[in-house]
Each structure stands twice: as C-alpha cells, then as structure tokens.
C-alpha cells in the first residue's frame, strides 16, 4: 500500500498529501485540480479497477467547506485506497471521474444532489434523489433534518407541499464535549415549545 502512495507522490508531488493510517485504512488528499489525473493514473497504473464509493462531506465552518471522498478498490490486490479532495464552498466544482469509472455517474449525481457539489464533465448532472426543482441540498449541515418548506413538482397535483417534519423536541443528540449536552437532555425542558426553541438555537 505504501508503495502505491509513494508512486503517487513520485508522480504528482506536492499535489498529494498523506492521511494518517486509521484502523488499517490508507488515504491521501489530492489537490482539486488533479483528481481526474490521479484517478486515471491509479486505475491504469496501479490497478485500482473499481470505484467502490464516492461521497460528499460537509464540514460547515471549516475551510474548505466540502470534501469529496473517493474509495478505490483493487480487485487484483484486494486493497482499498481513499482519496480526499477539498472543495471550497464558493467554487464547489470538481472534475468528474465518470470517464474513468462509469459507476461514478450516479455517485456524483448524488453528491451534487445532496451537497450541491458540481462535477465538471459529467454527462448528465441532474438531481437523482430529490426531484428536479427542489431548492435545497439536504445533506449540508445548515439544512435542518426536519426539512424546509418547498414546492412539490407540478406533476404531483393535489399532494400539497413539503412541510418540515415535527421533531417533537428531538433529536436529542449529545456529543461528548459539546456545550449543549446537558441542555439538550429532555428532562431540562418541560414544554415542547421550549424544546423546539432550544433545538432551533443549536441548529440541529
């Protein structure tokens, strides 16, 4: 595995940054401009013939805001490799790798749909999960789980419009070390309205 990373580094130099090994998984960061070349190189030269997964990540507040994670797999060597590409929020565009693995097609459309990350060179970059015309990108961190009001497509006559789901004060999420842990516990609050207010405050 290290050999591959070395090879990559030798070829692309500073465009490649190594990620720490975690639970036996390896990964590299790749400069946004080079991702297509790196992928092509990895497929043709290093035998990573399969793109197992492609996923967007939103790190709201960090810079760059978005990341795209590629998970490559080599059937011959039975190895995984992760590529991470940072994508700034103001220019959320990445080269499409559909030309390397056709399986990237839907994955990229999904990332586009869910995060609003565009993929340049994708043959048909349209929404895949939500309907055409849906105004939001649901997996962004600033999008509430309950959803935001929206129109349904014109074909869905008589079925109303999207309304936020009632959260009943939930979800009562607690992360160790975060400030809201105690406040978010339900027992602190007596009325649902109060809870909702807290939840809103915390942006969950």
């Amino acid at each position: 595995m290290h050999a591959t990373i070395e090879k990559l580094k030798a070829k692309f130099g500073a465009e490649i940054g190594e990620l720490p090994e975690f639970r036996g998984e390896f990964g590299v960061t790749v400069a946004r401009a080079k991702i297509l070349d790196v992928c092509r190189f990895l497929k043709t030269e290093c035998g990573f013939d399969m793109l197992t997964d492609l996923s967007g990540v939103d790190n709201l507040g960090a810079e760059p805001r978005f990341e795209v994670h590629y998970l490559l797999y080599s059937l011959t060597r039975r190895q995984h490799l992760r590529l991470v590409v940072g994508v700034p929020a103001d220019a959320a565009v990445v080269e499409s790798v559909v030309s390397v693995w056709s399986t990237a097609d839907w994955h990229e459309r999904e990332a586009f749909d869910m995060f609003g990350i565009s993929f340049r060179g994708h043959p048909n970059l349209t929404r895949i999960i939500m309907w055409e015309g849906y105004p939001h990108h649901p997996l962004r961190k600033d999008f509430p789980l309950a959803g935001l009001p929206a129109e349904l497509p014109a074909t869905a006559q008589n079925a109303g419009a999207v309304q936020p789901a009632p959260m009943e004060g939930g979800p009562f999420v607690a992360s160790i070390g975060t400030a809201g842990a105690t406040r978010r516990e339900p027992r602190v609050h007596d009325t649902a309205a109060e809870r909702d207010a807290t939840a809103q405050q915390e942006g969950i």
Partner: protein
Amino acid sequence: MLRPKLTFLDRLYLPQILAGMWTTLKHIPRRRFTRQYPEEKFKLLGKYRGAPVLVRNQAGQVKCVSCQLCEFVCPPKAIRLFPGQRDQAAPVEAKIEKEPQDFVIDMTRCIYCGMCEEVCPEQAIFLKKDFAIAGYKRTELQFHKDKLLELGGVHEDPICKWKNK
C-alpha cells in the same frame, strides 16, 4: 459448472412442464400452511416485541419514575413524557418522588424496537405481546398513561428496587 445443458427432452418443453405439474399437483393434498388468523390460535415466538406498555409493581404502583431515558432513546420519538410529582397522598413506597403526569406513546410512530425497554432503569416499560393495533383515527392510537397502564397490568418483579431504600 453452474449452467446445466438442456437435454433434448428438456428442449421439447413438455417433459419439464409435466414434471413441474407433478410438483404442483403434489401440493394440492398437502396440509395447508395457512394459519387462519382471527380463528386459529397461534403462539408468538421468542420474546416477541409487541407494543410498549407501562406496568405497575406488585403494590399497584406506577413503576416509571419519569427519568426520560426511554424518551431520549426512542428512535422515532414516539414517547412523550410529562414529568410530575407523585401523589404523596397515596404513598405506597414513599421513597419515589416522581411519576409521569402523562406518558404518551404514539402507536403510529412506535416501531416496536424495544429500545425503551432496554434502557429503562426501572423496568417500568415493557414490550408486551400486543401484535395488532389498529384504529380509525390517528388520535385513537396515541396511548396515554391510563391506556398504557391498563394494557400493561402488573409486573411481578423479582428485584424490588425501591423496597429497601
């Protein structure tokens, strides 16, 4: 080799069709597999997870102390709990101070996952074997404390946690 080669007879359609017909014919006189629901009795297997209900202890006291763990853990947030003070006028085991004022389980939300039972530190909520719940209105299916206790009944508890405190 996974792929069988069809023999000449197979290619004639009929022998295989006849064989298939023999297979299906053999099923006709067999005992029916059907369990005719409303009439025929059947046993739910294992520790069946039916609808969650509240229980009382042997002394007839509501076991729940409204610690809200179940409300917290419930994935669909089906439980709504309004904590309240125990009616001290009817003390049975005076050491418990809290009892839910109201305890609502929205049966249209509940997914019978059993997490509430799993986390309850008082063994106050149980998934009993109520496997079929239907109603004409959504509000009918919001079970309040009384209904839940009625369904739950008394739980014979081997460990009487508060007895000696």
